[in-house]
C-alpha cells in the first residue's frame, strides 16, 4: 500500500488515498488487472468506466474498535483509489470483476477487431 494525495481538477478538495498495488497482464482476449485491496467488501467498492478512464474507489471503513484506541499504526485507514486509462481496443461494456481475499481482479475484454488473428499459410 502506498499513500498519495488525491488531487481534484479544481484544486479545492484534497483527500489522502491509498494506491492499491496493481499487476496488469495481457492475453490474446484481453487485459487482466489484479489490485490489492485488503479489507474492502463488495458493498464499499465502486468501479466506474467513463470513456477510456477506469476508476476504482474502495471505502475502507476501518473504524477504531469500540472502547479501544490506536497504540501503533503502520497504515492509514483511508480509501483506496486508482485510475487507469484503458487501451482503445478494450470493450468497456464487457468488463468482468471479481473480489476475493482482498484481491480485486478485473478482466477487460478486447473488442472483436482488436483480437489478433492467426493467418494460415497455404
Amino acid at each position, binding site marked *: 500500500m502506498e499513500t498519495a494525495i488525491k488531487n481534484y481538477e479544481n484544486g479545492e478538495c484534497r483527500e489522502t488515498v491509498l494506491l492499491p498495488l496493481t499487476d496488469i497482464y495481457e492475453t490474446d482476449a484481453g487485459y487482466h488487472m489484479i489490485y490489492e485491496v485488503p*479489507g474492502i467488501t463488495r458493498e464499499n467498492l465502486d468501479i466506474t468506466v467513463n470513456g477510456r478512464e477506469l476508476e476504482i474507489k474502495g471505502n475502507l471503513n476501518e473504524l477504531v474498535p469500540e472502547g479501544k484506541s490506536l497504540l501503533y499504526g503502520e497504515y492509514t485507514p483511508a480509501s483506496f483509489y486508482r485510475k487507469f486509462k484503458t487501451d482503445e481496443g478494450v470493450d468497456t461494456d464487457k468488463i468482468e470483476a471479481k473480489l476475493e*481475499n482482498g484481491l480485486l481482479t478485473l478482466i477487460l475484454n478486447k473488442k472483436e477487431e482488436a483480437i489478433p488473428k492467426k493467418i494460415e499459410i497455404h
Partner: protein
Amino acid sequence: MVTYNLINRGFDIFDYVDDLFNRSTVDFIHAEYPYVQVYEGNNEIEIRAALPGISRENLKIEVKDELLTIEGEKQSDYTGNTYLRKERTFGKFKKSITLPYEVDAGKVNAELKDGLLTIKMPKSEHAMPKKIEIK
C-alpha cells in the same frame, strides 16, 4: 494501457511542489511486511494486518509471553503472459510484535476476512492490576 499520472494530467509546477511536500510525511513507511494497526482497550489488544491474497493455510500465528509472531507465505500468482505492470510482491514473511503486556494465549481469537487479519488477545490474569486493600 496508460496510468493516469502527473504527465497525463498536464504539468503544473505548483501542484507538483504541493504534492511533494504533502507526500513526504506519509509516503515512506519503514515497516516490515505485513503492515499492522495495533489497538488497545478493555484489557484486550486487537491487531489488524493487511494480508491481501493470502490463504488461511499459508498463515501461522504464534503467541509466546509478550511476543506475537505472524509468519506465512504469499504465493505468486504469476502467469506466463506478458506483464504491463508488476507492482505486487510475493514470498515468505515473518513479523514479530512486542505486546504491551502478557496475553492469555488460550483465548486468542484470529480471523482472516477480505484480506484483513484481525487478532484479538485478552490480557492474561496475572498481568491484570490488583487492588490492594489498606488495612
